[in-house]
């Protein structure tokens, strides 16, 4: 490579030069290309190949500037010929870009001069032995700024097909692949947010498919709307949307709620019934809002547990209400099997107990709650998850919030207990095997993780514990502001589509540096299929166009080694 070529190479994608900035605030660059060639959120690299450091950041603002305001005020096109006006504008009017200074890294060997050295170095970056580090200094004045190339993105976000790197989308301007490290993604709970219709469910499908294919983590999905397991029809396009079950027939177990459950007309792999004995007073308390429970409920439930221990639910269910028998003195007194009688016997307020009983009727009547389930479906689910399989729990016809809350919480509690025990066994040096990491995916997470319930559900416990017990959450929600902020702040990776509500935006960005810049980017995302990734799980925030969940996706995912993705996507979808 001659000097001439070398100096020309970076020029091709250079968009500007650094003109100012500080470590505490953003960097300023003067663009050398027309403003429309750069967009907010663009991933850029500052620094030359020969510099000590390369700096990575995002464009968060573009400003029209003038060397002298008069050049901007004067309508040059009217005063001068087009050619002169053009030349004058080129030198006196320009765009300045605000760039976050997020990461820095030493440039590696030149890939063209020393391909082997570059490869070794590249691998060491991917394995994080030479990781990009948070920017601790600033680029030189006039350091060239260029749009990130595919290799830059690969350096920072990982290279598709290598290790746990999974492509989640592409950069906006040039469509370079952007990956997430799936291992890292599940190390802490993660959240996918966005207003309705922004593509949360589609992106979740992509991630879940990736996790299943990656095969390091077990996945439990509470599929409230039957979106993930079975095939589906997209509500807006009417297109066929393949479900996970169809693509991973043996790996994915479909579990239906209730003995006779069908999922979109098909029989599940097996069904789940909740044993009455498994229900704890806490499971009920959690439904306080749904069931409109009173303040006295907790006292009553405590008394029930004190009286009947594990069978409290069955016993309580059996009690009669408003049942009176004539007593010895001829007066009517509560029947011995009545709520009232029990209440009197344990000294709780009779009417409170009566009220609770009547409110719990929805549970008493729930067909999937039985005294003796036909099979131990819970155990089977745990076994499945142990064996490298994944479970999609379909709620079938039980689509109310009550069902969803009750079942998902109860199951999660049970499963977490199991994982906690295993973890303790593993750590206790009893020769127990390491538990398989588990990700629990929940839609409409705010219903489980809102401020009122956060203290009580196992979900919030999981979120707070991070990976201590090998269980993390993948929460999917359109109202992040309603999720308890303590939970929000525990989320390692946040992937968010467009949000309209400023509270939601603020919630997604809680606890992050450069919030102001990110807020603007978030508000200006495309309404569909563009997301901002941020948080601990990604090296730096970035806006991407979501990977399309379609046939191409599945082809690429299922035969990744043979048909490695071409950079030239012109022929994608064409059949040769």
């Amino acid at each position, binding site marked *: 490579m001659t000097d001439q070529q070398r100096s020309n190479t970076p020029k091709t994608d250079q968009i500007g030069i650094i003109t100012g900035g500080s470590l505490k605030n953003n960097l300023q660059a003067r663009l050398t290309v027309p403003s429309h060639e750069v967009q907010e959120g663009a991933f850029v690299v500052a620094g030359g190949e020969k510099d000590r450091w390369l700096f990575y950041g995002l464009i968060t603002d573009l400003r029209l500037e003038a060397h002298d305001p008069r050049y901007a005020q*004067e309508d040059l096109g009217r005063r001068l*010929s087009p*050619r002169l006006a053009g030349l004058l504008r080129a030198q006196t009017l320009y765009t300045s870009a605000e760039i976050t200074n997020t990461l820095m890294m030493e440039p590696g060997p030149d890939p063209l001069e020393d391909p082997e050295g570059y490869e070794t170095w590249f691998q060491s970056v991917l394995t994080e032995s030479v990781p990009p580090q948070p920017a601790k200094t600033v680029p030189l004045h006039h350091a060239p700024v260029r749009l990130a190339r595919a290799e830059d993105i690969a350096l920072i976000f990982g290279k598709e097909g290598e290790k746990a790197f999974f492509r989640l989308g592409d950069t906006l301007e040039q469509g370079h692949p952007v990956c997430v490290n799936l291992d890292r993604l599940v190390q802490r709970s993660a959240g996918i947010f966005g207003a309705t219709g922004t593509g949360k469910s589609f992106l979740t499908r992509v991630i879940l498919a990736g996790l299943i294919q990656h095969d390091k983590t077990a996945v439990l999905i509470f599929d409230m709307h039957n979106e993930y397991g079975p095939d589906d029809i997209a509500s807006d396009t009417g297109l066929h949307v393949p479900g996970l079950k169809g693509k991973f027939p043996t790996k994915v177990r479909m579990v239906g709620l209730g003995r006779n459950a069908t999922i979109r007309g098909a029989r599940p792999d097996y069904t789940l019934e909740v044993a009455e004995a498994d229900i704890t007073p806490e499971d009920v308390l959690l439904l306080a809002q749904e069931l409109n429970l009173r303040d006295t409920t907790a006292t009553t439930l405590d008394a029930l547990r004190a009286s009947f221990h594990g069978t409290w639910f069955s016993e309580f269910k059996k009690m009669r209400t408003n049942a009176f028998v004539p007593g010895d003195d001829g007066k009517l007194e509560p029947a011995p099997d009545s709520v009232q009688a029990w209440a009197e016997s344990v000294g709780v307020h009779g009417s409170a107990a009566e009220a609770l009983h009547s409110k719990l009727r929805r549970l008493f009547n729930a067909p999937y709650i039985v005294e003796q389930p036909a099979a131990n479906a819970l155990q089977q689910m745990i076994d499945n998850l142990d064996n490298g399989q994944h479970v999609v729990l379909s709620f079938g016809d039980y689509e109310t919030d009550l069902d969803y809350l009750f079942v998902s919480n109860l199951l999660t509690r049970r499963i977490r207990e199991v994982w906690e025990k295993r973890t303790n066994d593993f750590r206790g040096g009893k020769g127990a095997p390491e538990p398989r990491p588990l990700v629990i995916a929940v839609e409409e997470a705010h219903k489980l993780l809102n401020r009122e319930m956060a203290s009580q559900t196992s979900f919030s416990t999981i979120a707070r514990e991070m990976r201590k017990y090998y269980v993390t959450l993948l929460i999917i929600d359109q109202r992040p502001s309603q999720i308890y902020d303590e939970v929000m702040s525990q989320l390692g990776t946040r992937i968010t589509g467009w949000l309209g509500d400023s509270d939601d935006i603020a919630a997604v960005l809680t606890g992050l540096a450069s919030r102001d810049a990110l807020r603007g980017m978030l508000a200006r995302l495309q309404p569909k299929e563009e997301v901002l990734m941020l948080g601990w799980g990604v090296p730096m925030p970035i806006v991407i166009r979501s990977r399309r969940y379609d046939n191409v996706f599945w082809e690429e995912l299922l035969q990744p080694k043979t048909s490695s993705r071409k950079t030239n996507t012109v022929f994608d979808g064409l059949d040769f």
Partner: protein
Amino acid sequence: MADHIEIGRLLRSETTGFVFGCKLDQIDSPSFGALVRVRMDDHYQIFGLIYDIQVQDDGLVRQLITSDTLANEAWLDTRGNRTVPVEIGVLALGYMLDGQVSHLLPPRPPLSLDEIFLCTPAEIAAFTGAGRMGYLRHVLRDQDKPVEELLAAHLKQARDVQSAAGNPAWFEAALEEVIALLKDDYPTLMRVLGAVDELELARDRQSELNGRLG
């Protein structure tokens, strides 16, 4: 030789420029904005731009003005015989030493009675095409001079020469340099560009005419 047109001799000089004189009947050759050179010796020549042409008066000329009817012969006499000097101001732009063009000011100014020549197209192309138009800064430095007119006249001459020499991109590069040098001075720059635009318009009209003539 036709391409070495002597147009006068040096009257006085300083580092940034010089003044030469020519007789009234020589005045047709040098024109405002033309590039000239002074040959100092075989190795060293100085280049400059004509920025001022002054036809001096003197007592007699002033006296002749008062005459009711100026005799034709007296008019011819003044034009042809009298040493009423035409003083031509030249802005030093650079020099050529041993064939190397420099756009720095000449290290030594020219001396009295040195001959001044109009530059040939080849010399114009060589001088204006060398380096990165550094000499333009000399033109723009002195705001007492009619900078915009001067630049426009020079750019026209150099543009025509450079285009003919197969370098049409020169003009745009020169304009970029002018803008770069003057962008801190909005009023001057706009005046300069306005004057340059006049050139452009004139050329457009010319090429339109040529087009019409086939």
